[in-house]
């Protein structure tokens, strides 16, 4: 039972990060019908920039409390990732808005490679250790351990998602986003500037990814220029699982996928008689994707994709 709770907690932590990234994928897919392949790498940029900020803080303002350092890192990483995302949309995707849909996907793959290359040039090829900022004393919950960093992660994720829901449901921009997601042309006729909305969508997704990126680094204590690829893909699987284009779907899908992965990794040895071990953890996301697309393509909460007719 202890293992179960432990894995459940691990799953929630992992799932929260997936949820944050999945939101970026789902929002962009909702308005553009595009899989932003480069989104995972935005997470990586967030982590890298955050780390650089921490290094600067350490050099010039040593002795700041851990929470403050993390806050500064996150708040500093957000504008950078937003800028990167906005640039990507402007340069790589905008011209291909009316192109056949595989074209922007191929471009997105190219952008992903370029982001990794620039990161490789700036920050080097080897993994970089992320400093331990919060106490390493684990908190016990029902026989399972969770670190303060992980708790902070959960809190931040919840806050970020809460803010997003507020934005989408209660603000003018949020209404505009929903309108464009539903039917861009009609939204345009109603006076909504779809370009502005699309840029905002990319920016918000990037901000969430920045939070996820910095906390990923804090949680795993090491980052590298390829760290965004696999989590990005898995987050996309989570978005599909929850229902592509659906914000609540992305949140639920992310959490569910995280839990599936954690429980799966924990129990797969037992389930397969020792044949498969926890190294196979990465497979779960793809298996889930294939199952969802085969059995229930609209996902847990149903798709919400633009009517582009």
């Amino acid at each position: 039972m202890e293992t179960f709770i432990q894995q459940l907690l691990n799953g929630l932590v992992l799932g929260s990060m997936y949820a944050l990234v999945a939101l970026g994928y789902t929002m962009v897919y909702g308005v553009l019908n595009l899989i932003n392949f480069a989104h995972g790498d935005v997470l990586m940029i967030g982590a890298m920039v955050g780390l650089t900020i921490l290094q600067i803080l350490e050099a010039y303002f040593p002795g700041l409390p851990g929470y403050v350092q993390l806050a500064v890192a996150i708040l500093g990483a957000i504008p950078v990732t937003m800028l990167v995302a906005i640039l990507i949309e402007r340069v790589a995707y905008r011209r291909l808005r009316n192109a056949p849909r595989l074209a922007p996907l191929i471009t997105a793959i190219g952008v992903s490679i370029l982001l990794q290359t620039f990161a490789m040039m700036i920050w080097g090829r080897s993994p970089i250790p992320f400093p331990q900022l919060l106490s390493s004393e684990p908190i016990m919950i029902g026989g399972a351990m969770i670190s303060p960093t992980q708790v902070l992660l959960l809190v931040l994720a919840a806050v970020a998602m809460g803010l997003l829901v507020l934005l989408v449901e209660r603000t003018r921009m949020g209404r505009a986003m929903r309108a464009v997601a539903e039917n861009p042309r009609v939204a345009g006729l109603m006076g909504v500037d779809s370009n502005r909305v699309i840029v905002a969508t990319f920016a918000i997704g990037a901000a969430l990814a920045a939070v996820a990126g910095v906390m990923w680094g804090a949680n795993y204590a090491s980052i590298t220029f390829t760290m965004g690829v696999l989590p990005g893909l898995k987050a996309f699987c989570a978005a599909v699982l929850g229902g592509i284009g659906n914000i609540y779907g992305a949140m639920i899908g992310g959490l569910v996928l995280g839990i599936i992965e954690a429980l799966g990794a924990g129990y797969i040895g037992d389930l397969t008689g020792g044949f498969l071990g926890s190294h196979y953890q990465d497979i779960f996301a793809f298996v889930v994707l294939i199952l969802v697309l085969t059995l229930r393509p609209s996902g847990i909460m149903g798709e919400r994709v633009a009517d582009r007719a």
Partner: protein
Amino acid sequence: MALLTFDTQHKPRQAYISMAAVLILMLIFPFVAAQFGNSWVRIIDIALLYIMLALGLNIVVGFAGLLDLGYIAFFAVGAYLVGLFSSPQFAALLESLIYYSPAVGEALVVFFGPEIAQNGIHLSLWAIVPLAALFAGLCGALLGAPTLKLRGDYLAIVTLGFGEIIRIFMNNLNDPINFTNGPQGINMIDPIRVFGVSLAGEQGSNATVFIGGYAMPSVNAYYFLFLALVIATIFITSRLQHSRLGRAWVAIREDEIAAKAMGINTRNVKLLAFAMGASFGGVAGAMFGAFQGFVSPESFSLTESIAVLAMVVLGGIGHIPGVVLGGVLLAALPEVLRHVVDPAQQALFGKVIIEAEVLRQLLYGLALVLIMLVRPAGLWPSPNKEERPNAALAREEEEASTA
């Protein structure tokens, strides 16, 4: 490019002259390049294998319009097949089997005999190539099957997922039964033997191969073998393109519903595309394993799948000469640049600012982005508009919006 044409249907004389010219160039190349050192030929050897991969992927992406992002899995299948059946690995497998399940293990040892239990299986080239083609083809059909009803971008991600799943399996199938030897990979893979002559050269001859009275470096020998395979691949894919099956592929790419209405069994035809594409990947993989002498999961990552896709996209999706060009550019160019750029940077700046690896990545990324923005049909698209997939992609888009 205007002088060079391979369009045998519309410009036969020019086409055959072009082909002859290119062939002659390719045949004398190794002897010329050898003057500058063996490494150039080695680069082209690997490039030839990548060209074969690109041509195989071209069947799936170019002809049938199915965006496969996990194609390298078939390269891996071929390579590991050679790893298992042309090296001591099978002995290791039996050993691990004995440890895991003594009854089964011992029985198999008796079945295969002490020779194999000691040294592993060592099949010859003539057995390995068809085996790799068949097995990879089968895998292609199996991996393609769940994707048949998916729309374009989902198909891409699912195939990507399959590619990753295969890589993870290759990386971990060493415990409890040792199929792949895990992250360490399999080494001591036999070199290719053609009519009793080992292409790695005889022992102690410094990798020189003796054929008839001739002596040539091992890399040259492999060069001619791979060149022959690439020519065969071009021949086969070209024949496929201009056939009933090729037309069916293009029909599905252009308008799947109309294709069905005209009696094309789209499920089977798509599976054939996957299978045929995969089989070339498998053969290329087998050659790769034998050439290198070892295989490890690192060579079969998502990056490699994307690299092959980049070759197809850059060169000219669906157009065989274009795909070959794309393969040459993206496989050979980074290496060529490294030989040129590194020393240049040393001379100019005193150190290397942009390493070869970084350059390679930059090239691939830029290729994909710029081509789609500036010249989506590729650097060398088909002169016959019929062979270009752009309308197909537009149709898919329309599909999705009215679905």
